[in-house]
């Protein structure tokens, strides 16, 4: 029962798993998120759960944590079958979870966020913050997790917020810790700190489930790994007996071509994008500016990649060059497209110069999810002479062009009346690419072009981007996936805390070097 008392004792009785899932099944509407998932986690280990976006790993973990019940199947914790009604039951059984999107309320203090739902009481009704603070202070110094308890959460850096999430679990004395994509927003250094702490916790006998899609993390930090694909478990192996290629194959179900051959760029003289001294005021953790004196240029016919950990100003940079007029997006500095100073232009006028954009957040920024494919094809082109006349829409032309594009870019199904939200991630992205390439782009801004997209679509999108380059577009590629950056870029810029801190040419770039710069060293 008490699995943290003595590691040796646990090892001796390791016949009972800390967590066991048997035949777990879950539907959401017509989508089968989990189909008969089996998973066994030994106590006192770090167990990796790996799979692509949408493979069903988060769903399984959420059922384990009691957020929703399974349609069928069994959950066993320490050998005992459990039927959770809510997370409260799972918490009581010693399970804790750090969610990918932190469960912290911005305006409230770190202390209140940790206490929530587990408040110590004085006189049976008053929250005893003093007692809680003392207990937490002890926990924090034991694990070296320093936190300022009284600051509102929203003023703390992401790394600290994650510490608070972990302290939440320790405060509740969780024995089984689930971490969902914990490193998505961390620098490599913060990541290392995190894993050092996780190993410490494991050595004390806690069981850790690490959900991730990063092979490297699984290989370096886990004891065993379970692979998910399309709602099913495709393999479970001790980490020491596997390699990245095997895991990758289990994840995607076919041999992955990890390297696409990109021919060298033929640069043109003309500048596609020139950004000079771009600044955006505002405080973010660790810096007084969201963007600080950013200058760079992209020539037509080349792909410039911007690498960096999420949250280091990439979103702000994209907003600033696409909406330079908006004071919320740009404080000072100039932006030129194709030699023309667009700093005072409205977005529509910028786009009409021949600027295509694959937006960062496909569903929010790229599509009208409830509207049919044809209307989505019009988005951004609604004032172009091809589709409108004197303020009225020309729907005949639109239907024709949309049908043609859907065919050419292989958007499935070929149904123009289907709401865009019903398309798969890959097909949504293809629809956006089809629409944006309708402009015959001279500048292409591609942000996170392969996020949440299946492997087939990744290849398609990579090839299209390279083709656009070869047809003379200047491409600015922003991605958190090093794979995108390393495969496509002719030059790589690194962003850290709102600055450009390094530049590499294609020949001199290495993953190690990039990683160091991304971490700000």
């Amino acid at each position: 029962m008490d699995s943290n008392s003595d590691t040796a004792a646990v090892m001796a009785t390791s016949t009972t798993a800390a967590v066991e899932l048997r035949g777990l099944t879950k539907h959401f509407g017509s989508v089968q998120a989990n189909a008969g998932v089996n998973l066994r986690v030994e106590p006192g280990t770090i167990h990796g759960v790996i799979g692509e976006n949408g493979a069903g790993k988060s769903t399984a973990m959420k059922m384990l944590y009691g957020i929703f019940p399974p349609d069928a199947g069994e959950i066993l914790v320490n050998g005992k079958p459990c039927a959770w009604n809510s997370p409260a039951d799972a918490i009581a059984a010693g399970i804790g979870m750090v969610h990918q999107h932190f469960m912290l309320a911005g305006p409230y203090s770190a202390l209140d966020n940790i206490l929530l739902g587990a408040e110590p009481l004085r006189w049976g009704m008053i929250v005893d913050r003093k007692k809680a603070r003392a207990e937490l202070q002890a926990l924090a110094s034991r694990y070296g997790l320093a936190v300022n308890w009284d600051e509102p959460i929203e003023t703390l850096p992401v790394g600290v917020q994650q510490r608070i999430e972990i302290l939440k679990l320790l405060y509740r004395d969780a024995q089984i810790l689930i971490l969902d994509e914990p490193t998505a927003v961390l620098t490599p250094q913060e990541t290392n700190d995190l894993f050092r702490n996780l190993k410490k916790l494991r050595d004390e006998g806690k069981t850790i489930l690490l959900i991730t899609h990063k092979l490297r993390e699984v290989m370096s930090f886990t004891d065993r790994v379970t692979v998910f694909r399309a709602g099913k478990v495709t393999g479970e192996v001790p980490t020491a007996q596997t390699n990245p290629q095997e895991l990758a194959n289990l994840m995607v179900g076919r041999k992955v071509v990890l390297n696409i051959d990109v021919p060298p760029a033929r640069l043109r003289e003309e500048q596609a994008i020139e950004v000079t001294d771009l600044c955006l005021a505002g405080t973010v953790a660790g810096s007084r500016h969201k963007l600080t004196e950013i200058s760079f240029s992209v020539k037509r016919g080349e792909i410039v990649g911007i690498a960096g950990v999420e949250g280091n100003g990439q979103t702000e940079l994209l907003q600033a060059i696409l909406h330079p007029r908006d004071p919320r997006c740009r404080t000072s500095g100039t932006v030129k497209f194709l030699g023309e100073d667009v700093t005072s232009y409205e977005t529509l006028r910028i786009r009409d110069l021949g600027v295509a954009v694959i937006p960062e957040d496909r569903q929010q920024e790229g599509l009208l999810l409830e509207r049919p494919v044809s209307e989505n094809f019009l988005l951004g082109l609604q004032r172009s002479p091809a589709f409108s006349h004197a303020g009225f829409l020309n729907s005949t032309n639109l239907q024709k062009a949309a049908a043609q594009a859907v065919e050419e870019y292989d958007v499935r199904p070929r149904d123009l009346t289907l709401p865009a939200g019903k398309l798969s991630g890959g097909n949504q992205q293809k629809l956006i690419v089809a629409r944006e390439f309708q402009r015959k782009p001279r500048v292409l801004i591609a942000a996170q072009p392969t996020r949440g997209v299946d492997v087939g679509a990744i290849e398609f999108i990579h090839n299209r981007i390279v083709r656009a380059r070869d047809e003379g577009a200047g491409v600015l590629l922003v991605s958190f996936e090093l794979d995108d950056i390393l495969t496509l870029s002719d030059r790589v810029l690194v962003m850290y805390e709102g600055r450009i801190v390094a530049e590499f040419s294609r020949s001199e770039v290495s993953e190690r070097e990039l990683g160091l710069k991304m971490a700000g060293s």
Partner: protein
Amino acid sequence: MTAQLVASTLRVSTPLIFAALGGMFCERSGVINIALEGMMLMGAFGAAVGTLVSHSPWLGSVCGMGAGVALAAIYGLFVIRLRANQIVAGMAINMLAMGLTPFICKILYDVTGSTPSIPIAERFQSAPLYLSWGLVVICFLWMRYTPTGLWVSFAGEHPEALAAAGIRVNRVRWVAVLVSGALAGMGGASLSIFLSSSFSRDMTAGRGFMALAALIFGKWKPLPTALACLLFGFADAVQIRLQGVALWGDQPIPVQFIQILPYLVTILVLAGFVGRSRAPKALGTAFQEG
């Protein structure tokens, strides 16, 4: 003159304070409460009927609170359970109260206009006034020092975090909505059996919305909200006092401009021209439990 004005300010702000505190619980938990007006109206009616039957303002105000809770329960059913749009449902609840009160009044007393008048001995003299300020203190302490206060705040700010901490968000919201109904009902009761001598048709006359305005002006916090009620109550008291008073020549003072002041102030505050008021982040969004 001044003492009288102070006294009448305190009196007319009493219903506002009750209703605004009710609104605070509801909105801090993430549920918009446009329906305060209707809950107050039902409360006013329930309290008048209760007092007429029981001859006790205390029992009467319990009836008023009960009527408010009943209406709040319908509201909760639709916005929490059935995930109706909170603004639409809120307006509908107001309409329902506007229809139900004369409808029942007609059945009970055969008139739609107002209930029979309540003898002065059976009305409140000043108890609701003290009660309302006591309640302000209680609400302040409750929100700050009790676990349930913390839960209400999180339900409105980050309901997922509350759910992940093992607390049922919708249960918290249900309680908040019902408490809101009880307090708004008490606000209505202090209109019909404290400030006047009977229930009359549509007697809330926008006070529910004014309470909502005070809540926004008070940044959704108990003490500032109560002070905002006091300010709006003051405007109301001045306006009543100036009605029909000639300022120069025989031109009466246009009190309309004082009447609209609270609403104007609310718009300015909300727009950030005078201070800044930030709503709970999850205000107005339904929470679906798995």
